[in-house]
């Protein structure tokens, strides 16, 4: 009962984490957009600044991209691989990361106005994903917690 209950709570927690991560990724893009727009900060430096004030998963993403850039990879490749790593290590769904992936070929290769437009569009798309994830979490978190306990209870009853 405790195992199934725990499993239900883990799934429920991941639903909440997904919403939180999407919010943090939106913040990351907001910081990058500000650094690009107001300070014309080079992208690697903007990533350092953004990573400094982000949670561990987003900070890890920034560090990964920076490391790959340092190894001589293009920003497009480094960003893509960073997003793939994020997908492997977090409860985010592939469609949640589509806005980030769409940025890969355009980051750093155009003027300020264009960069800000792309970053703002990606923020907007992330916000929509966040809304969907939030609704999903609200609908299902309680369900998973209860289901975990109930399945455990049923197993116990069956065994008795």
């Amino acid at each position, binding site marked *: 009962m405790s195992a199934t209950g725990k499993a239900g709570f883990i799934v429920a927690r991941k639903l909440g984490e997904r919403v939180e991560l999407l919010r943090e990724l939106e913040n990351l893009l907001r910081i990058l957009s500000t650094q690009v727009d107001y300070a014309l900060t080079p992208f690697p430096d903007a990533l350092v600044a953004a990573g400094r004030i982000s949670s561990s998963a987003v900070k890890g993403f920034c560090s990964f991209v920076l490391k790959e850039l340092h190894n001589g990879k293009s*920003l497009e490749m480094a960003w893509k691989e960073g997003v793939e790593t994020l997908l492997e290590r977090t409860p985010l769904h592939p469609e949640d990361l589509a806005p980030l992936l769409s940025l890969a070929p355009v980051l750093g290769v155009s003027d300020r106005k264009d960069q800000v437009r792309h970053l703002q569009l990606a923020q907007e798309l992330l916000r929509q994903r966040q809304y969907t994830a939030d609704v999903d979490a609200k609908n299902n978190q309680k369900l998973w917690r209860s289901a975990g306990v109930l399945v455990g209870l049923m197993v116990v009853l069956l065994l008795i």
Partner: protein
Amino acid sequence: MRERMGLGKPTRAVLEEEILPFLAFSLREPLRRLPVEVKENLLEIRLRLGRTVMLVTADGDLTLPGSPCLDKAAMDQTLQFLTQSSLYAREEELRQGFITLPGGHRVGMVGRAVLEQGRIRTLKHISALNIRLARQVLGAADFVLPYLVENGVFLSTLIISPPGAGKTTLLRDLIRQVSTGVPALGLKGHKVGVVDERSELAASYLGVPQNDVGPRTDVLDGAGKAEGIMLLLRSMSPEVIATDEVGSPADVAALEEALVCGVRLIATAHGNGINDLSHRPFLRELIVRGLFTRVVCLGNSCGPGTVEEIRNGDGSKLLGPSRKLKGKEMADASQAHRSAALDVRYGEGRIYSCP
């Protein structure tokens, strides 16, 4: 060649440490495999989309061996490395058509210009790059400086030269020496303000001068000359103002304003000798109005950097080819020769000293 000119770092080391990390991976190995003598003579690397990579050396042009035509992937990768994957951060420089790298190397660019209200806003579809290796020649001003100092006072100086004859190199070293001071000439260090419109003098990268411009030098990077001179006068109380390639009426007005404030000037202008100024009214005015006490003319008669003549502001010669120096001129010139760091006879006076 850099070593011959007394520079600290050989060109081959500059190429490998300061240029190669900014080039596409496919270009690095062919450049690394170049013979040492080619690396040492290297002046420019020219990348053109769809064409072979050209190297401009002191001995002429050659194509980069072992490198096929430059494809778009290599050009894009080079651009990413050059701009740190941040084209937007170099927008202002792109508008001017070049960016500066650490070490002061300049990368000229052309492509499709994006216009805004008739002016270039930025460049896109960049199709050609010209990577010019920076060449700071420490000691380039050793030969001429004794002519430009009188009783320990630095005299306002105009350097006239055709393109590629070394006026910017000479100006850069004059800035350094005037800023540092030259005890042998009784010249104390001066506060020097530099208006570096094209980032060629100090070669600032992210605001930090990459060339040695002396300890008392303040650099205003990227500003127009006329506006920049006025800003320096207001803000930095310079004793000497230096700027490259003057010539417009606004430049002349700003230089006059600086003189009124008691500031001495060092400037350069394009031209083949002082006679060339007669065809260019605004430049002629610089001399007629007595803005400059000395005029140094550089040329190529004995190779780039030859000091062709040095004149007083009134036109009289201190050093020149067509007649023997007499009287005070001779005394001035010989005094200057004796006190100069190099023992140079006329015709051998070059800002690039030979081994």
